[in-house]
């Protein structure tokens, strides 16, 4: 059923995929020819003057868009190729990745992924992702989501302890399957918050924030990037952070090392932390030729140290967190098999 669906969808909407398929027809023989027994440098020189599409599964102006555009000059410098950022929003960022996994694995198309969201959807067996963890080649992780829980600065909940003693606590969320829902749900389960619920249906993060300031919901859980403005404006407080050390913008937040967690709770929190560790990786379709992937991985490594990239990132206030593709593949991805059942249940209940 899925196969059939994918086919129709591709014919109808994904001409770019077909386009990329056609491109293989032109470039693949060359790439294969040179890869036969060439050293890395020579293979990488095959990128010179080529065009690489960096697919961003969200609209221009959003967090992923900004992050990707920061990387572009660094990747271009390292590869000698033209890297074109391409926004392809749809289906919560999954549509573009579905299309990517069907694209040729020749390095002409790579993408940044909302790893947290994609991993959660895969693990929960949700409808949407038509790929598994093995259907992606990992170029490397670019950044992680600093998850925080924010509360109204004037409410009774100024620290996580306050929340733990609460009754009928309400999280605001844009909808099921989004990270603000998953994290909130995980927290409710892990801390067994009495009568707590997640209110879904906010149209955007801005509206959820407004509801928080109006006192219609008690907290929002989600990436710090989306919360930064309201924290800085003094309207909201970061009560809890998933990072090991509270980030600068949320210095007073409780961190988990401050808390005594039961084993079950630890299992769930570790699950969330693993999702964030997967973070925002740069990926390519699976089955990519070792050397081509190696080129891209090295290029990303170089890009993450490129002064131009670092400078941009600092100015745009984006924290980078590089993890080489190989480590992502061998150290992070296998851990997905060992997640606690409680956490998987939380995920399943979040879709």
């Amino acid at each position, binding site marked *: 059923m899925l196969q059939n669906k994918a086919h129709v969808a591709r014919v109808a909407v994904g*001409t770019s995929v*077909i*386009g990329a*398929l*056609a*491109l293989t027809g032109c470039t693949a023989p060359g790439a294969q020819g040179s890869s036969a027994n060439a050293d890395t440098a020579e293979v990488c020189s095959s990128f010179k003057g080529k065009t690489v599409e960096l697919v961003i599964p969200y609209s221009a102006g959003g967090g992923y868009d900004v992050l990707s555009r920061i990387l572009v000059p660094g990747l271009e410098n390292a590869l000698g190729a033209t890297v*074109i*950022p*391409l926004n392809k929003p749809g289906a919560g960022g999954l549509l573009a990745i579905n299309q990517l996994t069907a694209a040729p694995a020749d390095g002409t198309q790579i993408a940044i992924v909302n790893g947290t969201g994609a991993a959660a959807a895969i693990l929960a067996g949700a409808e949407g992702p038509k790929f598994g963890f093995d259907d992606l080649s990992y170029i490397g992780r670019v950044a992680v989501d600093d998850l925080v829980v924010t509360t109204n600065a004037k409410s009774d909940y100024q620290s996580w302890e306050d929340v733990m003693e609460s009754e009928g606590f309400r999280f605001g969320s844009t909808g099921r399957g989004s990270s603000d829902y998953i994290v909130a749900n995980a927290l409710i389960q892990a801390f067994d918050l009495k009568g707590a619920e997640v209110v879904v249906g906010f149209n955007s993060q801005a509206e959820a924030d407004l509801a928080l300031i109006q006192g219609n919901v008690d907290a929002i859980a989600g990436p710090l990037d989306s919360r930064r403005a309201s924290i800085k404006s003094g309207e909201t407080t970061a009560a809890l952070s998933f990072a090991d050390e509270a980030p600068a913008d949320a210095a007073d937040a409780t961190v988990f090392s401050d808390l005594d967690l039961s084993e079950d709770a630890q299992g769930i929190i570790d699950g969330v932390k693993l999702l964030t560790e997967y973070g925002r990786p740069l990926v390519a379709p699976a089955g990519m030729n070792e050397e081509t992937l190696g080129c891209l991985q090295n290029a990303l490594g170089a890009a993450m140290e490129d002064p131009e990239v670092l400078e941009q990132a600092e100015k745009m206030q984006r924290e980078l967190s590089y993890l080489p593709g190989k480590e992502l593949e061998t150290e992070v991805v296998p851990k997905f098999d060992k997640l606690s059942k409680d956490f998987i249940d939380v995920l399943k209940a979040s879709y």
Partner: protein
Amino acid sequence: MTTQSANANRTGVPDLVISCVVLIICGGALALSVTYPPAVSLLLPRLAAGLGLLCATWMILSKLISLARQRQEAGAARTANPVHVHTGEISAPAEDDDEVDPNDAEYVLSHTPRRVWLTTIGFIAGFFLVLYLCGLFVAAAALSLVYLVTVGKKSWLFSLGYTTVLTGLLWVLMRWVTYIPSPPGILLPGG
């Protein structure tokens, strides 16, 4: 005779057909809404479909009645005085015509010769076909060149110049000044 048939067209049969389409869409949506799990919120979609069904049914019934009446009157008029019905029927649209210039959409769409319609639709279909195959820039160039020469009756020189400028500007704007993605073609993904 032509005015009378156009008149019937205007108020009768096409409305009936469109109403039927609305009826089918809304009925389909209503039927489809039953297949979703109860967690899916369907109150408003169902209300909307219901409203559509109601309006479409109303339209169909009233059109059928007026069509039947028209036919009856036309039959009666043919035996008695054909002019009488004519004026009665025409008076309302005639008043409209006062406010309608030849630029009016309805007038344009209904009075364009079939040949022009076919050429136009051919061009549109051709454009999207080329777009699908070769991407935006080729499609833009092909459309402007062919359209200007054949329909615009412009000289080859003018058309070529125009095409070059248009495609060039488009290229510069979308690939150099800003990178706005454009539809790629299956044969020419770069374009």
